[in-house]
């Protein structure tokens, strides 16, 4: 039987969804980072887990801002289910193929491709849904306390 986290003393589960819509500009990525940090603290993530989530979410938003075309906003949805946190990042523009950005194993110093590599390293599951008409949807999840 799965135990659900509860707000302190309230008996209420913390399962649920939250959404954040940020302008597709570099100066707003830190807000997405702060948001996921706040959510992660709320569900008792460790410091390491908080830092992993911050970086993964920021990298996903950065990819949307740098590679997608024609998008004015980035939509970030946080889904909490027990000890699992799932984050969906959508650019709503012409998108970019995240699979194409996935890097080869590192050897020589390279400037590009590190963001996707970090996301895949820090999160348990990562899935790209790319559609040139509706944009890119990145779904990533992490089980806390592993």
């Amino acid at each position, binding site marked *: 039987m799965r135990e659900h986290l509860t707000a302190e003393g309230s008996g209420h589960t913390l399962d649920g969804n939250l959404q954040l819509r940020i302008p597709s500009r570099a100066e707003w990525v830190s807000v997405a980072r702060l948001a996921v940090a706040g959510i992660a603290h709320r569900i008792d993530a460790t*410091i390491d887990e908080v830092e992993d989530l911050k970086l993964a979410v920021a990298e996903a938003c950065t990819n949307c801002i740098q590679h997608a075309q024609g998008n004015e906003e980035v939509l970030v949805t946080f889904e909490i289910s027990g000890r699992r946190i799932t984050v969906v990042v959508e650019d709503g523009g012409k998108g970019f193929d995240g699979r194409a950005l996935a890097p080869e194993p*590192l050897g020589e110093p390279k400037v590009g491709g*590190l963001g996707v590599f970090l996301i895949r390293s820090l999160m348990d599951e990562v899935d790209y849904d790319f559609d040139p008409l509706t944009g890119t949807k990145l779904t990533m999840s992490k089980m806390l306390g592993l």
Partner: protein
Amino acid sequence: MDIKVSVRQSDGASGPTVVDLNGEIDVYTSPKVKETISELIDQQHYRLVINLENVRYIDSTGLGVLIGGLKRVREHSGSVNLVCNNPQIRKIFDITGLVKIFGIYDDEKAACESI
């Protein structure tokens, strides 16, 4: 969220150039870091120690700036050493394999002596 960047010379003219960074390095702030490093290299500073002791966060764009700087100084037989004692930041260099490319030290003295 911002980044403060300052430059000084270690041990007078003979020592490496030290770049102190204080804050968070991300897609918004990394251009400022890139500009400083590029200017130093343009001024023929090819031995750089980049002090990350007061950096609380770095992402791939920040790593890209450091890699770009390293590539440029290597063209002049130079090198870049990093000072990093934050375990979360260090972990990112470990994951990406950049520990094999940069000299990474716990304190500035060691980073300056080893360059």
